[in-house]
Structure formats: C-alpha cells, structure tokens
C-alpha cells in the first residue's frame, strides 16, 4: 500500500490517520476535508464554546508538536469515489489516487423544510454554525429549541445559563428518549425544568413563523405547535438529528443504507475501503444488524480497529482475533450535571437504580434485558458509572454474540 486517502478531516479521520501511523504504516497519507479548518472538537460547540468558556484555539484536536507526515487538502469536498481508478474526485476538479480509502465524512444536521428562508433559524454541527448561533444568542431574549436530543437539550441548558428565556419542544414523551428511554428521559426533563427551561413534550412543530423586514430575509418570530399553541422566539434552533455524509459515494460500489454499511471491523463492500465515525454503520454481532453510532468515543476508538483490519489485508476478515465492538458510550453536560451512558437501551428494559437516588439527581441506573445488564446510565456519579461501563465491555467480550 503506497497511498491512503482519508476523506473527512475531523475526529474520525484524524483518529484513523493517527492509527495508521501508530500501527506502522509509513506510506503516503492524504487527508481531505471540506471545512477550511484543521480538525476541531465538536462537543464543546453546544456547551463551553457556546457559553463563551472555551475559545476556538481550545477546540483544536491536534497537539502542537504532532506531525502525521500527511498532505492536507482542506476546503475541498470529495464528490465521488471512482472504484476503477481507486481515486477520490474533488469538487475543484482535482483527483487523489489512493490504494486504500478511509471514509470519515461524518454527518450533517437535518433541517426543517420551509425554515431555510428565515433568518434566526439555526442548526448546530460545525464551528461556523456555532459562531453564528453564539452571535445571534448574544442579542436575543427568547429561544425555542426544536428537538430534545442531546444537542438540542444541551443548547437549551447553555442558553439558560446565558440568561435567555428557553422553550424546548419535543414530539416524544421526554428528552433523550430515543437514547436513554422515556423513563430516564423524564428525569432529564426534570433537570431541564429545574433550571428554568420550559419543556414541552409530546408536541411537534406545525410552523416556524417570521416577520418581513425592510432588507434581507424575513426574521423568525415564533413557532406554532401541532396543538395550536404559539411560542414567540427571537432565535430558533432546529436539533432534529443528523444525516450521514454519504451522498458522494453514489455509484462507487460502496453499499450505503443508514450510513456506510460495514462489517464488524469497519470494512465496506469495496475492498481496501473502510468507514469510521458518524457516517459508518458497522455490523453489530450482538444485535445481528448494522448500527450507526453517532458518538465521540466511537469516532476515536473504532478507527484503530478498522485500520488494523485494513493493514492486515483480506485475511483479517475471517480472523479469530476480531473482537465485537465495545458498547457505545457517550456523555452529555447539561443543567449543571454530567450524564453518562453506555450500551444500548430498548423499550421494555428493566431499569434499576444501583447507586445514589433519583431524588438526589445523582445515581447510576442499570438497564437489564432478561437477567443481562445491557446498558448503564450515570448522572453525576462518574466512578460507579465507569465500573459498570467496564463491566458491560468485559461482558460483551466474554459472552459470544448470539448466532444471527
């Protein structure tokens, strides 16, 4: 292998580049990214950066002395992957030939159709998005956040600390319900309400309204809910999830579903092409299906697994040293608390508080399916949470996955 091209120069792409060098690859390395920035960390964008407690320099992912001996092509989008030539075609007409390709194009924020023409409506995925939102919040009194997933709930919480009046609108019965279940989501709703966020669950948004201005696009002025209520707003954030960045792979021969379909080591359907991070749906032997994991830790840890298989060549696919991926882990900071979660929750899991108490808003809760612990949630109890997380990871390694 003489040249590896990494497409997507963010957390997963950088982690893959590091893994290649750590594992002894000493050939050519090209990183291609459509943002003009060097790799930066996204989680603070809805937290410390939005609150003004972290600067842009603090977001840098690379260390000052780090040298990957790589060629960086930034500000250029990959438009196609040509399987015959094994080349990545860029929007500016250039083409990068490579023996192997790492797909790390992440995801982009979903938008709400019809709101594009309004000024004051934001999504949050990139540094540029965060700059724009921060500037807009500075002069605003009322914020409506549509969607109480992690990013929406964190923005609501941060905006409260900045003194705004905040309404969080969520069609499901509780915030974060898709990830941690409705029962524990209700605990988070309590945290949000306790901080002064107006939490409106079980209702969707019918329309986002605006007022015409003398110059420029009409300015957002409120949200009409499906139940007819109207909530006034100076700024609206749409936090309704993210779409994997896979459009550029059309016609490449790489199979795509909800993300790039991969085996349990990140190999795609095209030999020599792997996918990592938010854009990738690895096969999960325990679930018997592909699963796209959109968390920071997966984007950091899985590239080493995928790169190992890539460097080992085709023989790796059948090797016995293939470990099941560790249970996904994420954290979220909101309402002055730290939420940590590992594993996969499903409706119907039995949830028991193992340490601390709901009343104190400091506890560890374990999710069980049958007798088997499948997930763990921690609120402000990192030490016992970490022990449970390690235990889940050890269980996953020890007990072979059920036959598909």
């Amino acid at each position, binding site marked *: 292998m003489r040249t590896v091209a990494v497409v997507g120069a963010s957390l997963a792409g950088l982690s893959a580049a590091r893994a290649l060098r750590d594992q002894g690859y000493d050939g050519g390395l090209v990183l291609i990214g459509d943002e003009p920035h060097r790799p930066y*960390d996204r989680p*603070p964008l809805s937290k*410390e950066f939005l609150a003004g*407690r*972290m*600067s842009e320099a*603090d977001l840098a*992912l690379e*260390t*000052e002395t780090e040298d990957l001996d790589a060629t960086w092509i930034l500000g250029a989008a990959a438009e196609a992957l040509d399987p015959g030539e094994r080349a990545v075609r860029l929007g500016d007409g250039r083409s990068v030939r490579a023996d192997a390709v790492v797909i790390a194009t992440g995801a982009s924020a979903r938008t709400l159709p019809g709101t594009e023409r309004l000024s004051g409506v934001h999504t949050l995925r990139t540094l540029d998005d965060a700059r724009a939102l921060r500037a807009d919040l500075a002069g605003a009194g009322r914020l409506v956040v549509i969607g109480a997933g992690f990013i929406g709930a964190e923005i609501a919480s941060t905006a409260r600390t900045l003194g705004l009046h905040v309404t969080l609108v969520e069609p499901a019965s509780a915030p974060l319900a898709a990830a941690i279940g409705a029962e524990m989501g209700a605990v988070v709703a309590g945290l949000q309400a306790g901080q002064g966020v107006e939490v409106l669950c079980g209702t969707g948004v019918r329309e986002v309204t605006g007022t015409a201005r003398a110059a420029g696009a009409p300015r957002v002025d409120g949200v009409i809910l499906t139940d007819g209520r109207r909530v006034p707003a100076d700024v609206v954030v749409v936090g309704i999830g993210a779409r994997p960045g896979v459009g550029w792979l059309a016609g490449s021969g790489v199979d795509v579903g909800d993300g790039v379909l991969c085996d349990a080591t990140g190999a795609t359907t095209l030999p020599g092409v792997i996918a990592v991070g938010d854009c990738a749906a690895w096969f999960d032997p325990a679930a018997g299906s592909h699963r796209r994991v959109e968390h*920071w*830790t997966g984007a*950091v840890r899985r590239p080493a697994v995928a790169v190992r298989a890539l460097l080992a060549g085709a023989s790796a696919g059948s090797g016995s040293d293939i470990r099941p991926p560790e249970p996904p882990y994420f*954290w979220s900071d909101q309402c002055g608390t*730290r939420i*940590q979660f590992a594993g996969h929750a499903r409706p119907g899991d039995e949830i028991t508080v193992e340490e601390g108490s709901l009343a104190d808003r400091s506890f560890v809760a374990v999710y069980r399916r049958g007798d088997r612990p499948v997930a763990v949630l921690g609120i402000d109890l*990192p*030490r016992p*949470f*970490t*022990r449970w997380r*390690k235990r889940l990871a050890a269980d996953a390694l020890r007990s072979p996955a059920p036959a598909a």
Partner: protein
Amino acid sequence: MIPACPLRSLPRGEAFRLDVEPPIAVFHTEDGEIYAIDDTCTHQDASLADGWLEGCEVECPLHASKFDLRTGQVDAPPAKLPVRTHRVVVEDDTIFVVPSDAPANLPPGVAVRCQGAA
C-alpha cells in the same frame, strides 16, 4: 506538606480527592504504591480520582485519556498536556502530600472559572 488521609482508609485500588485548590488525587495502586497527581484532567473538567486505575495508570472517567501516575505524562489522548505530580510522604500511618510548585495545566473552561473566582 498537607495531610491527606489515614493510610488505612485508602485500600489498594482506591483513590482519594484532596480538596485543595486545585484539587489533588491520591492513588493507592494494587502493587501498594502511593502516588499523587492533579485531580483535574488537563483535557476538560473531570476528576481523575473518579477514574479507572490500572497498574500505574489512571484513565479519565470522561473521555478515557490515560495518565502515568509516576510522571504525569499523557499515555493516551485526547489530553495533550501532562498533569503535575506531587510528592507523597507516609508518616505515622498518615498520607501527606507535598504540592508541586510548578504551574498546573488546568483545562480551558476550568482555568477561566478559577481565575474568575480569584
């Protein structure tokens, strides 16, 4: 020299957070060694005393940076800067810590907060 805790209250495999400014984490390893390092991770705001102790290494409970307890060096990212190490003295069954006078590598948000409070 600051008294941290009685030796017998810190079994092997456990850690203790000393509430000084900035806080210090004291670890008793499975091998019976005692080490003290800055408690706050240099990456973001997390307490290393809450971390996962393995050999002479602690893994941060938030994003799994690893620090060598003997040197304070980063063994695994995302942290970029080392933590300070502090000298430990055990006398009369009590653990004492001699805080380092080097400047601490506090993480971004925390550094701002401490300065603001000063």
